[in-house]
């Protein structure tokens, strides 16, 4: 049995929240302390790579519409490429801050995919509203890795990047398959 879309979104939200907390903790303690343990240094890139693998699994279940299939496949590719590049950065194989542009590209692709696979207008339902909100938020959040590439090691870029995951988690947790933008259909469709 395939899980409902909202359940997949809540699980993805938990993943995003954990990533957000990890990245936020790196901002607080600084990269030198955070990367003292190898497993911690590789955590964020591996999770990005792992989320790409998870998105492929979702792609397999998204065969009900070509647009959903293409959008999830694009996210999967973008997440895996960004994760792989970050692993190379942590290993020291890639050293230029310009590699952050790959992460920015992944955000832009993800944001665009969110926007194009939502056929309904903003105020149609909560799911439509959240798809539009998340899409535009990710496109705006691409500014953080772009900033990191142009002016590296500024707190605002890393903090903004981490908080984007927390905001993404909040929006994904708010998702319902069938609900108005605010409130819930108590007893009719499970709230």
């Amino acid at each position, binding site marked *: 049995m395939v*899980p409902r879309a909202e359940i997949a979104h809540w699980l993805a939200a938990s993943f995003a929240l954990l990533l957000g*907390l990890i990245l936020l*903790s790196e901002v607080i303690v600084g990269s030198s302390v955070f990367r003292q343990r190898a497993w911690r240094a590789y955590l964020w890139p591996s999770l990005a790579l792992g989320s790409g693998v998870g998105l492929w699994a979702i792609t397999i279940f998204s065969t009900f519409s070509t647009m959903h299939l293409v959008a999830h496949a694009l996210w999967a590719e973008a997440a895996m490429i960004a994760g792989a590049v970050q692993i190379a950065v942590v290993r020291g194989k890639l050293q230029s801050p310009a590699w952050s542009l790959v992460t920015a590209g992944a955000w832009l692709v993800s944001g665009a995919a969110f926007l194009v696979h939502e056929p309904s207008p903003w105020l149609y339902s909560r799911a439509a509203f959240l798809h539009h909100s998340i899409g535009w938020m990710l496109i705006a959040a691409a500014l953080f890795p772009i900033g990191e590439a142009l002016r590296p090691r500024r707190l605002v870029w890393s903090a903004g990047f981490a908080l984007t995951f927390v905001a993404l988690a909040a929006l994904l947790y708010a998702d319902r398959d069938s609900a108005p933008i605010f409130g819930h259909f108590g007893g009719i469709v499970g709230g």
Partner: protein
Amino acid sequence: MSSEIATTIPERAARRRTRVSRRQLKALAVQLLGPLTMLTGLVWAVAQPYRIVFLDRDGKGAYDYLAQPPLLVVLVGLLFAIVIAPGLVEDLEKEEHGSAG
């Protein structure tokens, strides 16, 4: 003893104290991230109890038990507090002792 040395020693001590208190603040902030996340999940559970399947079982399947958003938030906070935060605080303390010695 020159007056230059006499004035720099308290300055150094003050700087060291500032560094230590900054590290303590960082450690506290990291330690608070998990509990604050768990608290958020608990507040959410109280505000929207119908999102906890254990409290509202009618017509719910296995996936509903797996994904109960407020409980997932608590779980993420717990995971962070148990797995990630302690090591970070330990490494912060190690760095503090390293720079002091």
